[in-house]
């Protein structure tokens, strides 16, 4: 069944080609993009079902044996991430059908969305470090164009910051790949894992590891290199912001987890301690930024940063439980954060603005929307029994097990502040009486807006109320990450 690993990529490439060929026909393009995303969800579900019991699927592209060719690997972590990407891709495409204007569609919005998700899935599935770089470029180039497409001056400015910082990150990444190749002569990640472990402990590998940490740290928006994110995400249209917020920074987190569990594990005391304190700083600065803002999209953007800190915290603690917490947190966060950006878009359509001061009264006029905001928002804040509670609980438990009580205190404090700023949005936009007249005519929201929001809210509830199977899957995925031997054997075969 190893051919299955390439199926998500083939599906996305095919649907982007067909959508590109039908660029002139709006409705057909939308139908193709939706069909492609549904097919991706099916393919990802199949892949997840095959890897659910811990099997690692490996595909040697073009039949070149590893470590010489490019290997595609689907372990449980990768399959979970592909599934999440498919869910975000599908909901964002649905939301786009009701939102994106004819101009953006004419310039290839849907094919670009497909190529973006193709790049994301490729980055999750590849087992080759240089190929990871290539997939990063695929998704970045697509995201650059989507970011700048059809926008005015502020959107262009946001896109410019996004492009500049991400290019710097790519250069660092590529330098790291070059240095690693020079030292080991291989790019296959499983092979690298063996060679780096054999290398002399003279600081060379630690220096290379720091290059990777900086490169992926920029892409993941970790402290202190996060400032491009709030400067750019809030300028894009709601479905674009949701897709970027939900998915793109998590590709950076995925890459961090992958290389710092598989390749750079020789000097854990040094590298992972740095990641630990960077995570704490990321959590704290992100949440402080969020508390100080009054624009819904900016608040949500700063919360992405703060949440990234939790995800890398699990990597830094480097125990099976902590990594399971990270993986569960990523799943919870992707679903919840995408949904919050969708709701923010609907708030903007109904109230005419993202500014909290000019919003109000939505709980009375749209009680259903209030419920749909309440679920992801308070899940993000960590209220039991929603999904965010279990995600935070596992991480805090792991921190307590490692006796990192300072870190634990920070994690809890940041959780409280997150709850505070979610309550702020809820009170200001929904509960307080409406100000006199909306600042501009409201656009209204319909089927294509509410369906993805309701679907993601339902998923949040399932992740919370039926957390057990998902937590055990996260635990299995974390066990695979903590024992790279299984991954290496799956890729390279039994050691002779």
């Amino acid at each position, binding site marked *: 069944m190893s051919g299955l690993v390439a199926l998500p990529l083939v599906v996305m490439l095919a649907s982007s080609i067909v959508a*590109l*060929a039908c660029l002139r026909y709006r409705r057909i393009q939308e139908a193709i993009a939706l069909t492609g995303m549904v097919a991706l969800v099916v393919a990802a579900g199949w892949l997840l079902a095959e890897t659910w019991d811990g099997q690692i699927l490996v595909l040697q592209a073009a*039949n070149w044996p590893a470590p010489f060719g490019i290997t595609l690997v689907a372990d449980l972590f990768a399959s979970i991430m592909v599934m999440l990407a498919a869910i975000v891709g599908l909901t964002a495409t649905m939301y786009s059908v009701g939102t994106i204007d004819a101009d953006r569609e004419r310039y290839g919005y849907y094919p670009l969305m497909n190529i973006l998700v193709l790049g994301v899935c490729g980055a999750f599935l590849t087992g080759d470090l240089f190929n990871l770089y290539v997939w990063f470029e695929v998704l970045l180039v697509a995201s650059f164009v989507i970011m700048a497409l059809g926008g005015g001056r502020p959107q262009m400015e946001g896109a410019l910051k996004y492009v500049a910082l991400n290019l710097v990150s790519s250069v660092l990444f590529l330098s790291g790949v070059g240095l690693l190749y020079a030292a080991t002569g291989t790019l296959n990640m499983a092979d690298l894992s063996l060679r780096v472990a054999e290398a002399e402990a003279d600081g060379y590998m630690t220096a290379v590891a720091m290059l990777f940490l900086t490169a992926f740290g920029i892409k993941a928006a970790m402290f202190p290199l996060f400032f491009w994110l709030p400067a750019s995400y809030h300028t894009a249209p709601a479905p674009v912001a949701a897709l970027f917020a939900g998915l793109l920074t998590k590709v950076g987190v995925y890459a961090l987890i992958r290389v710092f569990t598989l390749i750079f594990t020789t000097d854990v005391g040094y590298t992972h301690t740095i990641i630990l304190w960077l995570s704490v700083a990321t959590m704290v600065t992100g949440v402080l930024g969020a508390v100080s803002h009054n624009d819904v999209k900016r608040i949500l953007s700063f919360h992405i940063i703060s949440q990234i800190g939790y995800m890398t915290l699990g990597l830094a603690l480097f125990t099976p439980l902590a990594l399971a917490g990270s993986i569960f947190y990523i799943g919870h966060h992707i679903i919840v954060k995408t949904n919050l950006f969708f709701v923010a878009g609907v708030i903007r359509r109904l109230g005419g603005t993202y500014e909290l001061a000019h919003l109000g009264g939505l709980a009375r006029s749209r009680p259903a929307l209030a419920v749909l905001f309440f679920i992801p928002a308070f899940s993000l804040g960590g209220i039991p029994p929603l999904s965010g509670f279990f995600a935070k609980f596992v991480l805090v438990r792991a921190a307590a097990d490692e006796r990192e009580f300072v870190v634990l205190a920070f994690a809890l404090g940041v959780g409280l502040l997150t709850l505070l700023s979610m309550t702020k949005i809820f009170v200001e936009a929904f509960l307080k009486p409406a100000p006199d007249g909306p600042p501009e005519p409201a656009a209204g929201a319909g089927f294509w807006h509410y369906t993805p929001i309701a679907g993601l809210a339902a998923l949040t509830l399932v992740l919370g109320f039926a957390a057990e199977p998902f937590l055990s899957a996260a635990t299995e995925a974390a066990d695979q990450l903590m024992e790279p031997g299984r991954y290496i054997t799956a890729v390279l075969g039994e050691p002779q």
Partner: protein
Amino acid sequence: MNSLVLRNMMRFLASLLLVASVFLLWRGHNEPGGGFAGGLMAASAFVLHALALGPAGARRALRVPPLFLIATGLGTALLAALIGVIAGDPILTGHWVTLDTPGAERLKVGTPLLFDTGVYLVVVGVVLNIILPLMEDE
């Protein structure tokens, strides 16, 4: 640009560039060259046409919109990648057929060449999709 010399030389030069681009694509399988270099050279033939007779003329000479070339090229590359799957091998695996030609040599044609042809079309499409609108803006 309105130059009599350029206009008259263009037909000759552009056809030469196109032939050379196909040659590059062909030899790229085992020697320097390939779909990317060939595609750039083919695109430069059309850019030369546009310089001599204007971008509208180049679009007419191209016959199909550049975007169509991108889609076709990507589709060709995907097809080349999937031929191996139909034969039961992993994706992108190369397959060859040997053709008997009237001459002495036997011709080996394979999916890597098909893939490179896809790259060639994508490169021509992308380059013209960028350059022609820029020339039309003037």
